[in-house]
């Protein structure tokens, strides 16, 4: 009936489809290593992982929303607000600023989820709107300016920029988040139900799953992870700003899709997102290594993005491609 099936027959079995993003990742690494030798050293790789950390944490959050068949367009706003809160509260609250900033993300994630579920507004619109609300708040709280984390505050964020056992702490943080999210999706009731809702909402409903609760939890998780990403970003840049994470929304969604999670939901997971985030990050960093004209970077990125999605997405589970 369509090409998707013939492609599927070539790559029989589920594992090949799951392996394609990984193969693409290795291929990209090799291409860059061949064009610009010296890329595959421990130092560059550690830098690569550290630079991917924020993107990965954001993408992990939005994976929950996408797996449900929804989308979260408020993550960049929530992350920016968290960075502003951290920068502003560090002097007065000290270490307590970290949980406060992250919990603000949880609160706005919950808000998105409740608006989406209770007012029955599609998640695309609901999160677009809460994103606007949150950006407005961040602008208002910070008076529209970037806030530098001063010397005293930097002492409290230094641990995020440190290295532990040879690995940057940000990498360890994102690895921990990745593992917890992976386990939560695979082995908890919430995780199983989230995938079931994404795969077929009416069926999940008929099977007695509390769809509304599952959705709200997923959006709350997305908001909380977005805020965590914002906190890490603020600590790395020693500054908080209401537009700090604005450029990260679409790359984060792209990371999820390139990793092989279906945008229609029900198929995919955090491990795939990790691969996707690394692909996005490698393309970005690799362009600098290979020496692409800085003005052309966006163009190459767009073309690679389309190619990567064309290669990696699993069309067998998508009835109609919209």
């Amino acid at each position, binding site marked *: 009936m*369509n*090409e*998707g099936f013939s492609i599927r027959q070539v790559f029989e079995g589920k594992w090949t489809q799951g392996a394609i993003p990984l193969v693409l990742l290795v291929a990209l690494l090799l291409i860059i290593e061949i064009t610009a030798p010296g890329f595959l050293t421990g130092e560059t790789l550690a830098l690569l992982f550290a630079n991917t950390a924020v993107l990965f944490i954001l993408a992990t959050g939005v994976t929950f929303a996408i797996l*449900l*068949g*929804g989308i979260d367009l408020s993550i960049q706003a929530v992350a920016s607000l968290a960075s502003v809160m951290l920068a502003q509260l560090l002097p007065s609250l000290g270490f307590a600023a970290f949980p406060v900033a992250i919990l603000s993300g949880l609160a706005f994630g919950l808000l998105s989820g409740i*608006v*989406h579920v209770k*007012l*029955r*507004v*599609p*998640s*695309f*619109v*609901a999160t*677009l*709107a*809460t994103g*606007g*609300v*949150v*950006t*407005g*708040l961040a*602008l*208002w709280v910070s008076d*529209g300016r970037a806030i530098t984390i001063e010397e005293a505050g930097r002492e409290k964020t230094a641990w995020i920029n440190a290295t532990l056992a040879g690995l940057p702490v940000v990498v360890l943080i994102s690895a921990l988040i990745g593992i917890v999210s992976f386990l939560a999706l695979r082995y908890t009731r919430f995780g199983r139900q989230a995938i079931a809702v994404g795969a*077929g*909402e*009416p*069926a999940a*409903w*008929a099977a007695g799953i509390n769809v509304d609760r599952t959705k709200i939890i997923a959006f709350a998780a997305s908001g909380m992870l977005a805020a965590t990403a914002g906190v890490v970003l603020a600590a790395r840049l020693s500054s908080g700003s209401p537009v700090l994470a604005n450029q990260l929304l*679409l790359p984060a*969604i*792209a990371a999820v*899709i390139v990793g092989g999670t279906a*945008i*229609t*939901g029900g198929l995919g997971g955090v491990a795939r997102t990790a691969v996707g985030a690394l692909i996005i990050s490698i393309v970005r960093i690799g362009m600098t290594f290979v020496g692409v*004209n800085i*003005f*052309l970077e*966006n*163009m*190459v*990125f*767009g*073309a690679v*993005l*389309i190619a990567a*999605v*064309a290669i990696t*997405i699993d069309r067998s589970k*998508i*009835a*109609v*491609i*919209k």
Partner: protein
Amino acid sequence: MTIDTEPLKSVSDIERTTLMTLLPGRIATMLGGRRWRSLAPLAVLIVLCVLIAVANPNFIEVRNLVRLANSAAVPLTLAMGLTFIILMGSIDLSVEGTLSVAAMVVVLLAANDSNGNDFGWWAVLAAVAAGTVMGLISGLVQTMLRIPSFMATLGMWFIGLGLSVYMLGGSAIRLNDASIRDLALHRFLGLPLAVWVALGAFALAAVIQYHTRLGRHILAIGGHEDVTKLSGVNVTRVRIAAFALAGFFFGIAGVLAAAQLGQSHAVIGDGRLFAAVTAVVVGGTALTGGEGGVVNTAVGVLIVTVLANGMILLGISPYIQQTVQGLMIIAAVALSLDRVRLKIVK
């Protein structure tokens, strides 16, 4: 974005009853159900206008109304193109990329302060053509490579943005062609020509949607793509045509934006995508497709523009304006979307 509801009709009945117990649903039923709902955006617009006019009579001054029309011109033209894509149940994220390509082409080919070109109105034609080609490529990528439009057009967004920044060399280039600048500066019947162009785009979009086969097919695809395919419609061709059509409107909007700003630069498109999506959605076109249309979108554009204008007139802090706009989107959509017919809200 793709929902197969066919197998579980019975569930939707349960859902329908629960839906009706929700407050917005109940209000809507009380006031006459579907017919009321479809008029909700218009009612929101009127209430908004009245409230702002009462709070600040300057709102209904001719000078302000002209300013309002002027700032609605580009969003209206953009949103016309986007409406067709959303009607199909797809999304076009390449709005900003395509717009900046068109603005780049018109500025570089007409008289400017960077090179010796002076092709006059041929530059406008080339810019609209460039927009159409961008849309065409989006459509081809989406249908031929079988990629969801979200990702295909996201890629095209980056490509368009990269191309225009590269061609402009990362700087802002001024548009010196007086006749093209007249689009923004010259007035006909009190309104800048750009507003008339936008109204023309609206009329064209309305004709396409209500009086051509393409318009009907787009609506049919949004309603149910499988059924449309089975009825013998060449879905692929309609999809490609729709994306090209959207690119055509984005191209016109790019020319208008360049004429209004008198220059083209890297960030000429910034923020226009979300503004356009907001306008389409607030107007009552469903993101799932098959519901709404260009008339809805025109109302949506006016709501968004009036709101922005009104908040400036009322002296609301520019920082809070985004918050108000966000709350507005939720309110408008919660009231107006005909979710009784949407079995699943994703």
